[in-house]
């Protein structure tokens, strides 16, 4: 039992617990908080792998921005507890067995056929300078494309979320 494995197991357990809690909780804000827990412990897992920049960005972007948006929307819509409605038999009859089948196969393959490599703590230091170099040289085009993507997403979000009656009211005022 070395330090790396111990830390991995501790935070992995927190991760899984958070993920399961996300499923079990009926109130969305609890699910959101569980997800934040998952993300935070994932950030620690990244640190264990040496990806410190990714870990920091994970916290800042995921926990600090995306999840804040979720919490914000939950607060804004004042979402209550989940209703129990029997909407879809197919999801339960086909989807869940499919999911279980798929994950079983993947787990079996991972454990039986590819469990050869292992990683040590801080295996690959994710130095911000190197990452920046890669991002702005080797991956410049994808980077620019994603920037366009996010610009479009911003505009789309603004259009979608703006109240439709806003324009008609504006016309009335005129």
């Amino acid at each position, binding site marked *: 039992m070395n330090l790396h*494995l111990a830390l*991995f197991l501790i935070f992995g357990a927190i991760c*899984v617990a958070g*993920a*399961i809690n*996300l*499923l079990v909780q009926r109130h*969305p804000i609890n*699910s*959101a908080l569980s997800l934040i827990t*998952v*993300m935070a412990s*994932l950030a620690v*897992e990244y640190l*264990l*792998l040496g*990806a410190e920049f990714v870990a920091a*960005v*994970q916290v800042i*972007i*995921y926990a600090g921005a*995306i999840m804040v*948006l*979720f919490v914000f*929307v*939950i607060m804004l*819509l004042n979402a209550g507890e*989940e209703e*129990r*409605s029997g*909407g*879809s038999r197919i*999801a*339960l009859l086909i*989807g*869940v067995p499919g999911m279980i089948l*798929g*994950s079983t196969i993947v787990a079996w393959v*991972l454990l039986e056929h*590819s*469990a050869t*490599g*292992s*990683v040590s703590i801080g295996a*690959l230091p*994710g130095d911000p300078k190197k*990452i920046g170099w*890669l991002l702005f040289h*080797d*991956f410049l085009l994808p980077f620019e494309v*994603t920037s366009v*993507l*996010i610009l479009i*997403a*911003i505009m*789309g*979000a*603004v*259009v*979608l979320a703006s109240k439709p009656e806003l324009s008609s009211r504006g016309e009335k005022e005129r």
Partner: protein
Amino acid sequence: MVPLSYYLVLSGILFACGILGFLIKRNIITIFMSIELMLNGVNLSFVAFAAHWQHLSGQIFVFFVMVVAAAEAAVGLAIIIAVYRTRATLNVDQVNLLKL
């Protein structure tokens, strides 16, 4: 030293939880969070593989996934707000007009 497969199994568990959440949760926001959970699971495997192959591109990929997740969250939450405005519910079982 931790076997690579442990990381992969952890990522697989997170991904499976995401799928399960998508399948069994009714609240549209929670479903959306399940997607984020799946993305996080995938990110973990990217970082683990980056460490395993000693190549930073795996970590770079995580950034792109994050950006896409951010874009998706912005648009998705805007859609949720729009749906809530028109249907006054967050239950996906009641938002089912897209059919014959």
